């Protein structure tokens, strides 16, 4: 599944990022394979997404989130 499929409050681990579509800046902010990610809030229409990635709080658009593969760590 990708980051875009995450539900509010759910946590996951980043498995892979396609570096072709992901800006370097996002990687530098901690969006790297192996790091944890949690979806904190969603703006109306579920976009953008407010995340906690590896301790950093940031917001990205859903179209970017589609390029980040994750695995959920909690069962809801």
């Amino acid at each position, binding site marked *: 599944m990708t980051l875009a499929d995450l539900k509010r409050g759910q946590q996951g681990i980043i498995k892979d990022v396609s570096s*072709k579509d992901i*800006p*370097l*800046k996002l990687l*530098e*902010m901690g969006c790297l394979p192996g790091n944890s990610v949690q979806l904190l809030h969603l703006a109306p229409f579920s976009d953008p997404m407010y995340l906690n990635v590896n301790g950093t*709080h940031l*917001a990205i658009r859903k179209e970017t989130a589609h390029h980040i593969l994750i695995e959920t760590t909690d069962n809801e």
Partner: protein
Amino acid sequence: MSKQINVALIGNPNTGKTSVFNALTGLNQKVGNYPGITVEKKEGVCKLPRGVKAHIIDLPGTYSLNASSLDESVVIELLLNKNDKDYPDVAVVITDVENLKRNLLIYTQIKDLEIPTILVINMSDRMAYKGISLDIEKLEKQLDTKIALISTRKGKGIDNLKDLISNYKTLSIEPCLNTQDIDTAYFEGLKKAFPNQSLYKLWLVITQDVNFGKIDRNSIKDASDFKTKSNVDLKRLQQKETIKRYQYINNALKEGQTIDLNSAKDLRIKMDRILTHKVWGYLIFFLILLTIFQAIYDWAEVPMDFIDSTFASLSEWTKNVLPSGAFTSLLAEGVIPGLGGIVIFIPQIAFLFLFIAVLEESGYMSRVVFLMDRIMRRFGLSGKSVVPLISGTACAIPAIMATRNIESWKERLITILVTPFTTCSARLPVYLIIISLVIPEGRFLGLSYQALTLMLLYLIGFGAAVGSAWILNKILNIKSKTFFVVEMPNYKLPLFKNVALTVIEKTKSFIFGAGKIILAISIVLWFLASYGPGEQFNNAEEIITEQYASENLSQDELNQKIASHKLEYSFIGITGRAIEPAIRPLGYDWKIGIAIVSSFAAREVFVGTLATIYSVGSDEEATIKNRMAKEINPVLGTPLFNLASGISLLLFYAFAMQCMSTLAIVKRETNSWKWPILQLTIMTAIAYIVALIAYQFLK
């Protein structure tokens, strides 16, 4: 022996870098621009122990040395150029204790440039609150540097930092990362091609397109044992580099940092639940805006009235005390009213900058970006366009510069083009004086009609910006990759010192920047209004005396007639009457016409111009407002400033692009004359048409 060392402050945005800068330099700072570009350059002086003086430069906030904006490339260009007069003897990297891991990324990069580097861990007062404990000694060993644990909020640790800076020679300059580890084969080849250079610096030249000594990107070509790589491959290597750096950081923090999540409290989550809420979030944002406008209008009124009457009496006093003559008139009728026209707006401009500074400092602005992104995108803008559009209410120039962090070129261009529609502080003088003349007093739901009109004008400006963005988004055929990353920093109580310094600095530069122009223009205008060619001007006295010989006028009344006759045939009167046919349909007379023409340089000149024109030839002490209220429309015989002409003027100024400096900035930021010229033409056309319709309907 006293000597001066160069110190560069580097760090991520939101780490309190500016607070550290303010703590070190206090009021010994100045803000300028880097030569040729409009990136702000902040520098200051700080006295260190043992008689050492430090020249401190506050570099723009950057997440890493991989520049993604003009501001960020300033940092890397300075750090690669040893011959720059600002090249640092020591770099101070500032981090936030809550985001240490991410903030350390740039530290490892700076260290790899082999510059002595001190690590500052700021906001130490929040450690207990967040359950963080640090073993500074272990961290210093792991990161191979000296660490200053400080809190700018509590004023702790600054002396220790000064001490470390003065001892910079003892710092290690060993790199954190062996560049060769990123890709052995590639960097082995690079090393053979450039045997005497630092590999990391070469790597930056390759990936960042910057110069380094005589080496630039193009000089790094294929050689016998070195092959260049494609951009996709380079990006893969950059990703690998970033992972390696984080491995290094994680290792260091494993030793020196422990976080007890059980004792950590997070106010941010609770506040975000409300402030980014689908309903409450927007409601709160709207209420904040409403408060700002009501405050600007109500609070600023007292000092403004005081300034207005002070300048009126100053002008009167000058006239009485100095020997009468041309120069005295210039002072009393040109310079003083002209200056009064700008000084009067200091209270409002200061308030506006105050609110913007507080919203930025507190971290609330990022929440607005988050809330607005989806809505703004529908109009071809980005959530980040909200910041330019809001700071555009202060001034379009810094607002257009603030578009630099919008990642997509199309979204950025549209933001640049529509930002001048937002109601900047230079429009306020025009709005306020006209509103107070034509909008009746009274209250509706506790808000005064006048404040509501002002609020409406702000909404019109914002609506025009968003509406034209929507059209531009449909018309402009630009393919552009879009992505969007925004950090949501923790909420902070704004530091009084930071806010105060911002307000003082911005107000000062606004007053002196615009003030000089207004002063010069009012001198020229006074001259044009006091001198004229031909019979009608030079023999005004005889002509009028003859014309009114039959009527029994007092000397005062006669002088009035002579003065207005002279004004009508002065250089300015002739020009004004020449353009009158074009502006009469909007309800203006030639005097307003002159004010509009002269305010093409800058809007706030409008009031100064009217002040100058109306005070030429009037004797009694009067404020600008009173004089304007007394003007009579020569055709209709009714007051010149009535509801119809007033609304028409307000709308004209709401839409017209009357600011040369903004045009210059747009030219610079878009690197083409096409956009500013298009902007000027279209905005002026809209302004004229809307003002025309409004006047014809209301008259």
